[in-house]
Structures are given as structure tokens and as C-alpha cells.
């Protein structure tokens, strides 16, 4: 009887580790710093205001601080990491915010569809961009970003502790299992004061397909605050797309060095 109990316990522990190992492969990719990630945010946004533009507050993402986002359009993003060089792009079908980090330099520009077809770029001026010094301080204090704020939360939840800042939240694996339609999942969660946040990573076989994020809680005034985000992973590979790690041909570097 005791042996059976031990066997079952061992199997349970083993199975839990096997289940959790699926996300570990993605953690290794992120920790290694070499990756290409493409995603599509397909969250239907509930309409709670007359405005089409809302302000996003002090959250960690390319939209750091006070960028404004349209409520009625889906976001998509591309993130490429290659050691010290990174590229992030977040936007709608015809307008994207982009950041290229090359060594100690930071290029920020927008990319939008041209009337003549293809894309045009705007840095300081149309077709021109000047590099800023890379903000190592923000990276160390708030962690590196992965596109928009919600996707940054989803990615930093799986990065190992040694690779993220202590200001970032440490999610814990809570459960894993299989949905009725045969997709497996791993659930991570954290309680941060009165706020509970949970992330489900959903896999088809070993491949990460979708990520769901939800957060709810009461603020210091007792008001219920909640947000959610549903993301479809289009690509998550350990091969950086190096074409995106240099300035596009329609954009001239005007930095005086």
C-alpha cells in the first residue's frame, strides 16, 4: 500500500514536471536572448467610454508612460532579440510604433502604410531618425520590454529570476492540464496585495499557440479593477530575424557620432 502511494506521488510529481517543462523550453529561448516572436492581440475590448483613444498608465511596455491606444482595433507585434541588439514593433494594420536597439543606441520611429503602397517611416522627420543613448537604467529597474504592456507581462512571467528586475512580478506555476479539445495548458498566477493576476499558456503538442491573461482586484479606494488580454502566437523561434535588426531601407540614420 505504501509502495503504491509512493509510486502515485512520484508519478504525480513527474507528470507535473513534464507538464511544466513545456514552458521551460520557451524560458530557455527568452533567457538565451536569441529569438523572433510574432503575436496578435485579439482581445475584444469592452467599450466603457465615449472615447476611441485611452491613455495607458505607467505600465511596462513599448507604450511606456502615456501613449494613447485605440480601443477599437486589434494590436499585433514583433519582437526580435539577438544578444545586445533588439527590435520591437507594435501597432495596428497600417500604423506601427518601432524601436531598434543596436548596442548602446536606441532608434525610435513609426512605420505606416504609404499611399503609394508599402511602408514609410518617420523618426525625427519623415525618412530620418537620430539615435538616443540606450536607457540601461530603465532596463535594469523595470526589465526589458516585449511589445505592448500585456505581452510584456506574459513574457516576463516566464523569464528566469536572474534575468529580470526585482520590480517585476514573480509568477508561480499553479496548475497544468488538458482542455476537452486536446490542447494542453500551464497556468501561472500571482497575488499582489488585493490584485490577482493569472496567465494561461496554451500548447498544441509542445508548441505555444495562445496566451490568456487576466487580472482583477480592488484598488486602494475599494473599486473593482480588471483587465484581460488574449494573444495568438504566430511565431516563437530561437532564430532572430536579422533583417529587422538594421534600419529599414526607407529610413536614414542622421546620428552625429
Amino acid at each position, binding site marked *: 500500500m505504501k509502495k503504491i502511494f509512493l509510486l502515485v506521488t512520484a508519478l504525480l510529481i513527474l507528470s507535473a514536471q513534464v507538464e511544466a517543462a513545456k514552458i521551460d523550453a520557451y524560458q530557455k529561448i527568452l533567457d538565451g536572448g536569441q529569438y523572433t516572436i510574432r503575436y496578435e492581440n485579439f482581445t475584444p475590448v469592452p467599450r466603457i467610454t*465615449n*472615447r476611441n483613444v485611452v491613455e495607458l498608465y505607467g505600465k511596462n511596455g513599448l507604450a511606456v508612460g502615456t501613449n494613447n491606444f485605440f480601443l477599437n482595433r486589434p494590436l499585433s507585434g514583433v519582437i526580435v532579440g539577438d544578444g545586445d541588439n533588439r527590435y520591437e514593433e507594435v501597432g495596428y494594420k497600417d500604423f506601427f510604433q518601432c524601436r531598434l536597439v543596436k548596442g548602446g543606441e536606441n532608434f525610435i520611429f513609426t512605420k505606416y502604410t504609404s499611399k503609394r503602397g508599402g511602408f514609410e517611416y518617420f523618426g525625427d522627420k519623415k525618412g530620418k531618425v537620430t539615435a538616443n543613448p540606450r536607457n540601461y*537604467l530603465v532596463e535594469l529597474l523595470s526589465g526589458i520590454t516585449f511589445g505592448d504592456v500585456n505581452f510584456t507581462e506574459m513574457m516576463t512571467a516566464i523569464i528566469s529570476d536572474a534575468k529580470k528586475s*526585482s*520590480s517585476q512580478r514573480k509568477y508561480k506555476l499553479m496548475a497544468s492540464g488538458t482542455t476537452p479539445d486536446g490542447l494542453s495548458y500551464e497556468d501561472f498566477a500571482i497575488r499582489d496585495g488585493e490584485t490577482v493576476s493569472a496567465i494561461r499558456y496554451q500548447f498544441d503538442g509542445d508548441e505555444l499557440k495562445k496566451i490568456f491573461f487576466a487580472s482583477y482586484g480592488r*484598488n486602494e479606494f475599494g473599486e473593482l479593477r480588471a483587465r484581460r488580454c488574449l494573444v495568438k502566437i504566430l511565431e516563437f523561434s530561437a532564430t532572430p530575424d536579422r533583417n529587422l535588426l538594421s534600419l529599414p531601407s526607407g529610413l536614414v540614420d542622421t546620428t552625429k557620432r
Partner: protein
Amino acid sequence: MWNLECGIWKFLLAVIVLLASATAQAEQPKAQEYRRILSSESFYVEYDDNNVKRIIAQDGSRRMARTNLGGTYRALVSVLNPLGNYLANENEKFPEFMYANGKYYKFIENDFALMLRADQLGDENLNPSEGWGTIYESLSLPNELAVLNWHDRFHKVPDALSEPVFVASMKKSVGGREYDCDRYEAKITNAAGKNSATIVFDLCYANGELALAQSALLANGREYEINRLIVKKILPNIPSGGFKLNGKEKVHAAGTGDMNDLLENPPFIGRLSEVQ
């Protein structure tokens, strides 16, 4: 006898060494006074941040701040036309941002302000063009001066950054001028609890007064300068040329995505003296 003399010399030497190390380790005499002023209910701070003039003041329960008195246009005027600038600034004594009794104010003109209750600050429907998202940064002491009052209510820092601690005093030459500097260090930790970088703050004094405040990041085996402020004034009270509000300023509600906001017609709440 020789032994006794030798003992005395050793003792004197030890005293000298102790005194010397104590001098090197002590903060500048005025540091404690600045700390007291900045944590009190009344202060006035004026500094230049990369040629942008900023003023932060506390007057009882009111915190007020203003960047570049008169704005960029006025600053240009000051170069070209000192008299115009003088007249312009004479009329503009209102703060750009203010906090008082659980309410935030943004002054658009000297007699017109928008008001937001503190509990509305996290509302995602706030009018993006009103810039409420950065109001903490606008009202807070900059990091370099917050070294002397790290727990200022508007000074928000990520958990990863520790409170700066005094390390040593030193002589430093900046721009060809010699300063007496106090160095403070703050540690940045990663989620595994390891120290990932250090920020050093140098508060530099000329003739006993704080004149320069610098910060730099020590990471990747290099030093990156973060910021350098030229400190103009740290006073225990608002001087006569400082902020002035008469209480008759018209206060309107901030835009929260409702119909008034869409029509750009912020409802009138009352005069400042009634609202406060």
C-alpha cells in the same frame, strides 16, 4: 621612557588617522539642514535640468511645480528680450501642476485650472491630452535631490532600487570648478535577489551650498551618466517672486471620457478657494 614616548606617538597617530577618516566619511555640514527643509511642510526648490528651469514647492498641504516659467517661447524671449521676459514672468506666478487635499490641479492659464480627485488618477478613460499620467513625476523631487528625502510622497521608485546611502565625501572637479561632493549609492537588484547594478549620486557643494546634483549608473563595467542638475535655490519658504494664487482661479473638472469631455467643455466646479 622611550616606550612611553613611542606609545604617545602611536596614540596621536591613531587619533589623526581616525580624525582624517572621520572627515572623509562625514557629509557636508549643510546636508542635514537640506534634509530637514525638504521633508518639512514648507520648501522652495529651483534647479536647471539640461537648461530647463524647474521649480518645486511645498506650502502646507499644497505641492506645486512648474517647468520653465513661461514655457519655451518665453525662454526664447528671455534670450532676445530680457524686458519682455521680465514682464511675461511677472504675470505668470501660477504653478503648472498642484496637489492639495486629495486633489490634483493642472493650470492651463493663471485663472483656469482642471481638477482631478486622487481616486480618479488610475482611470484609463482620462483625456490623454491632459497628461495626468505623468503628474507624479511633475510634482516629485528629481531623484538626484530626493536623495535627501527619499520617502517624499510623490517620489515613486521601482522596488528594485534601494534607498541611497552615504558612502564618502570627496573633492571633484566639474567643468573646471572644484566642488566638495558627498557620494551616495543605491543598489539595483534582480528578481533572484542579486545586485545587478549601482546608481551613484554625487551632491556637490560650492562655498558650503548645494550647487550640483549628479547621478550615474554603474553597470556592464562602465559608468553611464544619467543626469546633472544645477541647483539654484533650496529655501525653507516660498520667496516673494515665487508661486502666488489668489483663490479666485476657476476650477473645471478633468476629462474622463464623458460627453462634456468629448465636447471639450469641462464643467465648472467652483473657484479654487471653494474647491480646495
